[in-house]
């Protein structure tokens, strides 16, 4: 085994599993070389029990790893060494990513009756004080909260955020969409009822768009539960 003065790649076990800690000062080129060398050297150590995959999380520290760099690391680990990456972490964000995160968190408040033929698109979440009439549509990249009746169409998580929700004081939509999942109310009266007071719509673990009472949200989306539990 060759000894290096400086270790650019450190493999260590944590409570969550194996973690690959990457140096954030050296050049990316050097880092990749080191990564490959380390993996080769510790191949036996890496050998997962027969038939099982080895999982790691990668921590890039304060290095900004763009999509191309991330792909290069993934290619090396996943394709050449059959190690699967559970999470790719970095302490830095690009400005663009930070802006997107801010936008997603933004809450827009509006007083309006959205009427047939009108479409409103919001970046982030929206609190509408008013109604969404039949034939009208409200869209948000985040969640949609309506203090009023939802009779038209609501589309939350338009950029793919499946954890977005749709809430309304009175829920009687013509169609609901969360991310890419679409549902319209049942057409015969025997099936579950879709009209109700203070209802919310969310995508459950099976990927099914589901309706429930809004009070269930604190359990369904604890990340947005807020105080006093925070």
């Amino acid at each position, binding site marked *: 085994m060759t000894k290096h003065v400086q270790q650019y790649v450190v493999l260590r076990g944590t409570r969550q599993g194996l973690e690959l800690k990457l140096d954030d000062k050296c050049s990316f080129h050097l880092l990749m070389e080191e990564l490959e060398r380390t993996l080769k050297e510790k191949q036996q150590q890496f050998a997962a029990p027969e038939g099982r995959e080895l999982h790691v999380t990668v921590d890039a520290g304060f290095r900004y790893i763009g999509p191309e760099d991330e792909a290069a690391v993934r290619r090396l680990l996943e394709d050449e060494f059959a190690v699967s990456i559970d999470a790719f972490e970095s302490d830095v964000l690009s400005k663009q990513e930070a802006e997107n995160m801010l936008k997603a968190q933004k809450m827009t408040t509006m007083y309006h009756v959205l*009427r047939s*033929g009108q479409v409103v698109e919001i970046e982030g979440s929206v609190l509408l004080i008013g109604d969404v009439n039949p034939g009208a549509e409200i869209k948000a990249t985040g969640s949609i909260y309506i203090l009023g009746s939802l009779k038209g169409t609501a589309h939350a998580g338009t950029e793919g955020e499946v954890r977005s929700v749709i809430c309304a004081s*009175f829920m009687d939509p013509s169609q609901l969409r969360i991310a890419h999942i679409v549902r319209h109310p049942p057409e015969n009266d025997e099936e579950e009822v879709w009209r109700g007071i203070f209802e919310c719509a969310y995508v459950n673990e099976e990927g099914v768009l589901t309706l429930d009472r809004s009070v269930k949200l604190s359990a369904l989306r604890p990340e947005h539960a807020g105080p006093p539990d925070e």
Partner: protein
Amino acid sequence: MGEAIVITSGKGGVGKTTTTANIGTALALNGYRVCMIDTDIGLRNLDVVMGLENRIIYDLVDVAQGTCRLQQALVKDKRFESLHLLPAAQTKDKDDVEPEQMLEIVAELKKNHDYILIDCPAGIEQGYKNAVAAADQAVVVTTPEISAVRDADRIIGLLEKEKHVEPPRLVINHIRSNMMRSGEAMEVDEIVTILAIDLLGLVLDDDEVIKSSNAGEPIALNPKSKVSIAYRNIARRIQGEQVPLMKLDEDTGLMAKIKKFFGIRS
């Protein structure tokens, strides 16, 4: 200076022309100077409902294109000195009139009329734009039918963008109280809840309306009919009076109100 009121609906056949003729007649009956403009170019019929077809010489397009003076095109009503009609052209195209020309014509008419009632064609194209261009107020006509209410909602959304028009008011026409009671037609409260605008009046469905329209005698002239009283009340509300709404003898118990509030049908 007069007030210009557009009577519109989105959907055709819901009663815009009937409403225009009767509000015009009722306002004239109350002593106001009124001019009705038919902007349904190509499908004019306000003149027929008013029984004035034979008196037409010039029309709206003639005025817009300068073929005649405005005063020459105004048709005087048979019954009221103070009631005039500016008829639509029957043979010309909707695009023969521009919104700017409507503004000029209406501004001119305002000088010697208290109310200018603009009968709007169906749809949301050029004809609608012409009709709305010069309006200060708007009356949206609908019927207790989902499709008519949907179109009314669309029109209200468009009217709300017109900053020169006051918030529109609603007339629900063709009301059949037995159908409302049995739940076969939408209820008044349900319609008003969805459209979220002020109610100007309720007009019952009545065969007499068709008879009087065929006779060229607007029903508002008949003091006994319920529909006539409804139109006269609408006219009084336009004049600014507080007139209570007609009773439709429906279920108004507390439970029914709560159910309606949440849109639940009994």
